C-alpha cells in the first residue's frame, strides 16, 4: 500500500504510460503504415514500375488552399487513404464461420506483436527516464514467449473461417512457426553467452561498452577474443535473421498466406478492419523483429561516435551538448536502424521466390536447427578458451 501512494509509483506509471503512447501511437503505428507504403513503392521500383505516387494530403478541402499537399516523393498520403478505406469498407462476416474465434483471431494477431515491443530498449535515457517500457531482466525470453502467442491468431483465423484455403494457411503457419521458433531461440543463445544476460537493456549496454556484436570494432580496436567470437556471431546473425523472416511470415517464407496458392491464406475470409488488423499485426511483428535484431546484434540505440544519455564514451567536444539531445539522437538512431532493416525485409521479399513447403521444413529442421545448435558450442568453446 505504501508503494501505491509513493511518488515512485506515480512517476513510474506516468512515464510508462507516456512511453507506451509515444512508442505505439507516435512511432510504431505510423511506421507500420509507412512500411506498407514503402513496401508498395519499393516493390514497384524494383519491378520497374512507378507505384503509388499520387495520393497527397487533401489540403484543398480546407478553405484558402487551392492545391493538395503532395511532398517530394508523391503518394505520401496513401497510408491515410488506406486507413480510411479500411474503416469505411463493409465488415462482412460469412455465415459459416465460428463467430467467437473469428472475432478473436485478428486481436490475437495484433496484440502479441504490440506487447513484445514493451521489452525493447529503444533509447538510452531521455530526461532521466530509461527509454524502455518494461525493463525486465528476462526481456529476450519475454519477447520469444509473447511472439509465439501470435501463431494462435493465425491458427484460429484459419480454423474458424471454416473454409479450405484459410485452413491450409493455418496448418502451414503452425508447423512453420513451431519449427523456426526453436531455431530462433537457439541462435540467440550465443548472444546471451557473450553478454551474460537475457535482459535486453544489459545486452545493449554490453554492446555500448564492447562494441556491437556484429561489428566489434565500433568501440575502437579489435582484440583476439572479439575476432574469434565474430565467426559464431555472424553465423548466429544469419540464422537468427532467417528464422525471423520465417517467424514474421515474410517472403521467402510466407507460406501461410501465399497468394498464388491459397488465395490469401489464413485471412481469406476477412474484410475491412479485421483484415487490416492482420495486416497491422504482420507489420508490427516485422518491426518488433527488426528491433530485436537491432538490439541483439547491431548495438541497439548506440552509434559509435555518440555518447549515450549517461554521458560516457564518444568524442569530448560532443559532451557540451545537453544530454536530452543525445537521448533523442539515440532514439532516432535506434529507429533508423530498424527502418534500414525493414527496407532489407522488403528488398528480400521482392527478390526471392517462395520456398516449397517441404524445402521450408527441411531448411528449418535439417540445417538451421543443427547450425544454431553447433554454434552454441562453438561460442561456448571460444568463450572458455579466450578468457
Amino acid at each position: 500500500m505504501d508503494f501505491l501512494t509513493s511518488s515512485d509509483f506515480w512517476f513510474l506509471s506516468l512515464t510508462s504510460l507516456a512511453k507506451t503512447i509515444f512508442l505505439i501511437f507516435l512511432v510504431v503505428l505510423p511506421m507500420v503504415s509507412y512500411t506498407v507504403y514503402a513496401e508498395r513503392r519499393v516493390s514497384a521500383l524494383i519491378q520497374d514500375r512507378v507505384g503509388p505516387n499520387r495520393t497527397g494530403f487533401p489540403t484543398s478541402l480546407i478553405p484558402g488552399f487551392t492545391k493538395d499537399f503532395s511532398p517530394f516523393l508523391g503518394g505520401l498520403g496513401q497510408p491515410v487513404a488506406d486507413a480510411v478505406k479500411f474503416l469505411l469498407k463493409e465488415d462482412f462476416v460469412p455465415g459459416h464461420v465460428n463467430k467467437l474465434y473469428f472475432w478473436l483471431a485478428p486481436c490475437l494477431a495484433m496484440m502479441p506483436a504490440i506487447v513484445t515491443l514493451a521489452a525493447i530498449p529503444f533509447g538510452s535515457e531521455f530526461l532521466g527516464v530509461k527509454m524502455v517500457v518494461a525493463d525486465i531482466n528476462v526481456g529476450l525470453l519475454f519477447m520469444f514467449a509473447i511472439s509465439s502467442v501470435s501463431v494462435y491468431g493465425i491458427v484460429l483465423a484459419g480454423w474458424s473461417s471454416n473454409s479450405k484455403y484459410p485452413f491450409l494457411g493455418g496448418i502451414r503457419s503452425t508447423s512453420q512457426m513451431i519449427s523456426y521458433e526453436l531455431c530462433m531461440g537457439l541462435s540467440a543463445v550465443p548472444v546471451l553467452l557473450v553478454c551474460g544476460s537475457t535482459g535486453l537493456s544489459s545486452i545493449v549496454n554490453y554492446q555500448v561498452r564492447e562494441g556491437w556484436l556484429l561489428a566489434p570494432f565500433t568501440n575502437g580496436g579489435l582484440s583476439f577474443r572479439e575476432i574469434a567470437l565474430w565467426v559464431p556471431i555472424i553465423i548466429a546473425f544469419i540464422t537468427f535473421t532467417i528464422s525471423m523472416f520465417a517467424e514474421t511470415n515474410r517472403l521467402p517464407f510466407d507460406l501461410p498466406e501465399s497468394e498464388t496458392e491459397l488465395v490469401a491464406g489464413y485471412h481469406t475470409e476477412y474484410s475491412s478492419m479485421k483484415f487490416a488488423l492482420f495486416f497491422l499485426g504482420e507489420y508490427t511483428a516485422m518491426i518488433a523483429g527488426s528491433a530485436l535484431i537491432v538490439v541483439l546484434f547491431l548495438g541497439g540505440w548506440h552509434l559509435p561516435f555518440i555518447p549515450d544519455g549517461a554521458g560516457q564514451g564518444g568524442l569530448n567536444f560532443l559532451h557540451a551538448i545537453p544530454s536530452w539531445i543525445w537521448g533523442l539522437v539515440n532514439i532516432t538512431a535506434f529507429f533508423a536502424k530498424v527502418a534500414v532493416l525493414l527496407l532489407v525485409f522488403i528488398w528480400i521479399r521482392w527478390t526471392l521466390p517462395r520456398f516449397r513447403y517441404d524445402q521450408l521444413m527441411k531448411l528449418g529442421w535439417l540445417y538451421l536447427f543443427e547450425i544454431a545448435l553447433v554454434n552454441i558450442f562453438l561460442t561456448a568453446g571460444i568463450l572458455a578458451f579466450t578468457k
Partner: protein
Amino acid sequence: MAYVVPRPNLTWKEKIYLPSIVAGMAITFKHLKRMIKGETHVVMQYPEEKWDKSMPDHYRGAPTLVTDEHGRERCVACQLCEFICPPRAITIKPEEIPADNKFAKVEKRPKEFEIDMIRCIYCGLCEEVCPEQAIFLRKDYAITGITRAEMVHDKAKLYELGGVFTGLVNKWNPKK
C-alpha cells in the same frame, strides 16, 4: 518411355544458397537504382503527359461531322452510316432543305444527328461508308460524361468537334 532429367551437380557455393541470394539482391538493387535515377523507361503519367502529339493520322477517335469550305454541312442524311453502324449508335432524322436556302439543290440534310458515345465502338465503318465524306473519326479519345444523356453527341456537338474540312468532294459546289 520415361525420360530422365539429369539433376545438375551443384557446387557447395550453390548449395549454401546465400551467394545466390546476394546476387539476386544485387540485381533487384540495380533495377531500384536505375528507377530512382530515372533511367528506366516507365509508363506515361496520363493526365500530365499525353500522347496527342505522336498520335498517328489514322487514329480512330470520336466520330464527328464536318462542314465544307462554304459552310455547308456535308451530310446529306442518306442514313448509310445509321444502317452500317454495328452497335446502332447513330440516329438520324432527315429533313428537306427549304427552297430559299443557298444549298437547296442538295435537297436533304439531317434535322437531328445523334451518336450515342456509350454505344460507339470506334470501328470507323461510318467514315468508310459515307459517300459524301461528311463523317470522320477524329483524334478525340477522352469522351466522358456523368450522365447517359451527356454521352449522346447531338448535331451541334458533332459539328463543333468536326470543324471544317476542305477539298475532296466538290460535286455540290456552285458551277463556275
